[in-house]
């Protein structure tokens, strides 16, 4: 019964709407406006243009101030501080151009709205103006290009020889890290060697693999030099460490690299953010399958001492080799060279 009534109401509603439309059409045809877009229309849209612009500007400024709390905290890597300040320089520049151009656009729409019988100012060309607004953006952009490339070249320059080499290994849908050990060399690996016990396919016969250790939680000593080498076993992932302003794609069949110098420990960042639960992360930032959004690894940046303690408890790639005797005898020796340099430097 109720369904029937609903249908009747809908049908009646449609009929009414149709009749209303007919009436509106008749009125429209009777009115016979002289112009298609009338003075009233121009006034309405001109005013709307101003209202829209003002509301938009206020809304954007208000939102930006409010959303400041969401922005990434201060960069926890050396190069990130530089790119951040460069980013904000860019934003400052952009904001100036944005507000001027948008203001002119919507203000002109209001100010120069159609007035009957008047004529626009016939002004088809001006070579001087054209030259000015070609050359000025060109100069500004050359400045940006030069500064940006200087940063880029520094960031991507070959890593110093004493940087600690760590492999970040991506697969659907988790990350594994492999520390290169005392020799600071990653043992050779091949996807054909992958088994349940040897998930990275590391070659047991390669002597440099003997001291490699693996973990599902990445730890980095603060103020150290880290060279990440990325490998993937299946499809393209992207290792994204937003707090370190670091990202590199992880591509099957090839090695990619990123050099980073972490500067703020997890504990310090927790104090800065006033959030005792804060943790750094490595995210996957290249669509990699159904659980893409769940692919992440905890990242801990800590003092070299704390790192040393943690590192000693790590498993070797080949667990047979990780048995007692070695772990006891070699305390600092087990640390990768990069780290020992840092500790010695202190």
């Amino acid at each position, binding site marked *: 019964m109720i369904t029937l009534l609903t249908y009747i109401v809908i049908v009646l509603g449609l009929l009414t709407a149709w009749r209303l439309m007919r009436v509106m059409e008749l009125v429209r045809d009777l009115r016979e406006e002289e112009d298609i877009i009338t003075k009233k229309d121009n006034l309405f849209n001109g005013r709307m243009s101003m209202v*829209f612009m003002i509301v938009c500007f206020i809304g954007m400024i208000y939102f930006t101030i409010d959303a400041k709390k969401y922005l990434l905290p201060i960069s926890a890597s050396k190069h990130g501080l530089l790119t951040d300040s460069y980013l904000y320089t860019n934003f400052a520049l952009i904001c100036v151009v944005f507000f001027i151009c948008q203001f002119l656009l919507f203000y002109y729409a209001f100010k120069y*709205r159609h007035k009957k019988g008047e004529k626009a100012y*016939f002004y088809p060309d001006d070579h001087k103006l054209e030259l000015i607004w070609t050359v000025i953006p060109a100069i500004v952009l050359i400045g940006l290009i030069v500064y940006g490339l200087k940063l880029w070249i520094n960031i991507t320059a070959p890593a110093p020889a004493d940087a600690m080499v760590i492999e970040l290994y991506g697969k659907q849908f988790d990350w594994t890290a492999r520390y290169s050990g005392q020799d600071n060399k990653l043992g050779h690996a091949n996807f054909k060697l992958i088994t349940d016990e040897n998930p990275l396919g590391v070659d047991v016969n390669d002597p440099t693999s003997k001291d490699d250790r693996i973990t599902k939680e990445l730890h980095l000593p603060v103020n150290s030099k880290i060279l990440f080498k990325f490998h993937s076993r299946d499809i393209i992932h992207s290792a994204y460490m937003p707090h370190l302003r670091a990202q590199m794609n992880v591509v099957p069949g090839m090695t990619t690299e990123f050099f980073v110098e972490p500067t703020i420990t997890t504990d310090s960042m927790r104090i800065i953010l006033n959030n005792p639960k804060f943790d750094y992360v490595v995210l996957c930032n290249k669509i990699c399958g159904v659980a893409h959004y769940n692919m992440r690894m905890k990242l801990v940046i800590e003092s070299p001492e704390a790192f040393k303690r943690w590192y000693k408890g790590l498993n070797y790639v080949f667990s047979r080799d990780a048995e007692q005797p070695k772990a006891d005898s070699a305390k600092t020796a087990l640390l990768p060279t990069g780290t020992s340099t840092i500790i010695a430097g202190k």
Partner: protein
Amino acid sequence: MSTHSSDQAVHVHEAHDHEHHDTFWTKYVFSQDHKMISKQFLVTAIVMALVAMIMSLIFRLQLGWPNEKFPIIEKLIGHWGKGGKLDPSFYLALVTIHGTIMVFFVLTGGLSGTFSNLLIPFQVGARDMASGFLNMLSYWFFFGSCAVMTASLFVQSGPASAGWTIYPPLSALPQAIPGSGLGMTLWLVSMVLFIASALLGGINYVVTIINLRTKGMSMTRLPLTIWAFLITAILGILSFPVLFAAALLLLFDRSFGTSFYLSDIFINGAPLHYSGGSPILFQHLFWFLGHPEVYIVLLPALGLASEVISTQSRKPIFGYKAMIGSMLVIAFLSFIVWGHHMFITGMNPFLGSVFVFTTLLVAIPSAVKVFNYLATLWKANIVLSPAMLFAIGLVSFFISGGLTGIILGDSALDINLHDTYFVVAHFHIVMGSSAIFGMFAGIYHWFPRMFGRMMDKRLGFMHFWLTIVSVYGTFFPMHFIGLSGAPRRYYAYTAYEGFDAAININVLVSIFAILGGLAQFIFVFNFFYSMYRGKRSPQNPWNSNTIEWTAPVEHLHGNWPGEIPTVYRWPYDYGKPGAPDDFIPQTTPYTETKNSNLPGEG
């Protein structure tokens, strides 16, 4: 050229006599008339756009309220939304197909297909396209491509879900994601058909513009729309074949076991045989099309906007030659900037530097265009028609989105922003919204030329203001989701700590997206209603100079009943001092306008 036209005139005159023989099939379905084909493209594009828009609203519901259940989702997509909860793998499918449809079917096929077809013969003064038959094929390949893509939505394993950029190995291995099964094959087949359509269309457009211009229509008397379509068509002809090659090689890898893109893969507990390929190769090939594609989408929109802005400002476009020059420079640069999509793929950093340089150079011609638009509006006499409003909206988005492009084009800054929501916000404004606003401007402006009736202006105003508010409301906050470090293509941000921005801002974004989506139904209603019941259009509703408005309101084969009008001047003599009206059509000779001629004219 004049012989051409008169030959054609004779030919068309004959055709004219046979007009009543048109059956339903030859008139509405297998039509070779550019006007009908343009309508076919437009209606197909509107339908596809609605499908893609509803998809985006479904995933906006998921992103905005990840813990809620929406029974409507189950109604719309069946078992993929069991219990009103969107399936994570179908989320990726929605994102992929939304992007594909919008970029290719709506903003490439729909935009170029509709307006190149409608305006090229009308504005250059031709009876029809150079080849009506190729033109018909172009539409039917497009239709076939849309049909295959739509069919792929109903495949059991789901449609393609590797993102609209379909990077292998994800798109190559069905083991990696269910959508890379039959769904991906259909995606590739659809794309091959689409490329065929784009090429058939493009070749036709170029030939028509070069060969079939009417008497007096020199290249420097062409409206900017035609220049934009010409450059767009050339871009398409040069870049789409590369996508074809990329798709073909991917098809080989998928079906015949070759290793163009694949190497060293271990998946589902077993190593695969592929060796020696490079996934990066695909990205190079894809973006060699992909970046010009951005301008294939944008240039026609800018062309339409230029024409609308000049006409409705009642003032010549400022710097006509600079506008053409900047389009040419943009088109040239668009071929050597593709690497800016790949800064962090492990590409050689020096090569990255080169791409930074070329990419940021694009900002110069873009800035010139914006300033020229502003100069056109300065001291103008602006008729704020719905088309003009949308053209102004386009310029606004072109500014906003172009500026964030300066940031993303810088490799050092791209490291931290790549593949975050900042990118999503950037290209939805500069490419998506700009181009769709250009398309709306074109539809509102040339609707009378298409259907002989006017669209309702009040609904048009409503549509515009609601849409521009929703676009900024949707995409402005999205930048901040990106700046908070939230990756794109995530099904949910609630599984872990640390995504407060994505969770909270997404609610606002989704609300505006839904508002914007609903506003489009005003347009759809206005479009189809006005097609049948709109007010009859006068001969030249916008007092425009271009010659399409000299053809009779009722369509006929060959466009003009008698001889094709001769053109005597450029199309932008608006508001000329000394002239009685504020416009002088291109068909008016200088001898008739003694009072308004500038030195050197006539």
